[in-house]
């Protein structure tokens, strides 16, 4: 594996962005939120396939849990309708609770798995639930991308 070490703070503040990969939605089962688990080729040298697939599968499971229609969602719908949906002024919906769990999971994955490899995952909710955006930062370990990244390090500074 590449020998570069990044942490999340360092990535956000000083490393330069090389590329962005977008993992698209998987609509094979309808309009429920699910992302493709196909491994993008740009990440081949940066992260193990199984780690990436695990992350996407866990995210898909979270979304499936949020959108599941069962006893819990019926109860929530009936109570909400009975109170003319005013109950959501004081209570969080199930979906919002799961979204918080997802945000926490992505943060944890970034810290433990992706930042050390120079990658950063953006929460899909920040991209309209359309894509999982994976930002690829300069790989200090390899020599190939360093020339490309150094030429744009000036342009990324705002």
């Amino acid at each position, binding site marked *: 594996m590449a020998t570069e070490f990044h942490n999340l703070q360092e990535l956000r503040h000083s490393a330069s962005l090389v590329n962005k990969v977008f993992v698209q939605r998987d609509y094979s089962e309808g309009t429920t939120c699910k992302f493709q688990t196909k491994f993008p080729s740009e990440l081949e040298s940066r992260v193990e396939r199984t780690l990436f697939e695990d992350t996407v599968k866990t995210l898909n499971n979270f979304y499936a849990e949020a959108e599941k229609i069962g006893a819990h969602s019926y109860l929530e719908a009936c109570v909400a309708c009975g109170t003319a949906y005013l109950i959501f002024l004081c209570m969080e919906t199930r979906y919002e609770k799961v979204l918080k769990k997802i945000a926490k999971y992505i943060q944890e994955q970034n810290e433990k798995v992706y930042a050390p490899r120079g990658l*950063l995952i953006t929460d899909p909710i920040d991209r*309209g639930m359309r894509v999982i955006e994976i930002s690829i930062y300069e790989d200090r370990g390899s020599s190939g991308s360093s020339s490309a990244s150094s030429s744009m390090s000036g342009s990324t500074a705002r």
Partner: protein
Amino acid sequence: MSAVMITRKVRKWEKLPGKNTFCCDGRVMMARQKGVFYLTLFLIVGTCALFFAFECPYLAIHLSPTIPVFAVVLFLFVMAMLLRTSFSDPGVLPRALPEEASFIEMEIEAANGNVPAGQRPPPRIRNVQINNQIVKLKYCYTCKIFRPPRASHCSICDNCVDRFDHHCPWVGNCVGKRNYRFFYLFTLSLSLLTIYIFTFDIVHVVMQNHAGSFLISLKMCASTVLEVLVCFFTLWSVVGLTGFHTYLISLNQTTNEDIKGSWSGKNRVQNPYSHKNIMKNCSEILCGPTYPSVLDRRGVMQDDSPSLTTPATPSSTSDSTVPQTTKPTAPLIPNEQTPDDAKPSIAASTEISTSLTEEGEESAAHRVPPLASPETDAEASIAKAAAQ
């Protein structure tokens, strides 16, 4: 030049594209034209006020006090549903940020290959298999995304809306995934309220004229006449609309799909979203999860300050302005599954990126493929016709 940085909190709703109006610091989101919505409010509140003022005292004394109580409850429910439908985000899909837009643009150009000059490029369509049916996803030139299934672009609000049903001028907003159930409950409860007021108006008139001869002492005060008139005309339209939407819900279709005839006809694809079971379809729409808004309206934007060099961050609170180029490698098959070795890469170079984005914008403006842009207008005109 002043060295002091002005830190005014700018919320994201102030910079959102699209033709929406926002109130209460981004908490309320509506369409621009609100005239008909005010009319709806006036009709409902006015008619109910007349009912409570003139009919209810008589009915409470001579029949039962529960009649006005139930009317109040029903009225409050109708208002709650109306305001919820009008003020909430219908399911607007945010526009693609520059990197995502370029990524998609390059995928499309790679898939189309070299188009000879003078020839129209093929329409931007992505085929997707949903429940073993092929569904075409269309590209939205305004939002620069491939619209998810069932999404459509509303030209009145200038937004792509997920599970777009129609744009309703009566509620002053689009009806989409997030507010469809409120819209349905609004029409249902309004039907009940209209029938209720109409019935008790008739009961009131009949009771008042019970003593004497019906023809001679037909006393109907002006308010009752007004209420009966409003209720009579509302009944036909609102009850009809409720029935129509009940039919749509049982089949898991949207008004947009019904009008376009997406799932009807022998040679057409069958509705892949229907569970083929009325109860399941109804429960999905009425008892399904309350979807969150993906449009961050109240988030705080970082003001761009030229004096400070803020580091490039991938965080979503600021507009990411990473310039890029796109290098198509191999032609892509225009469907959901893209081959591994054909992903375009997005590296950075300011010069090439500027020319490419300009080219992209120009080409978007000049190249008008037969299916994409005109259909947007057709969809909008159909939506307008449906709403009337």
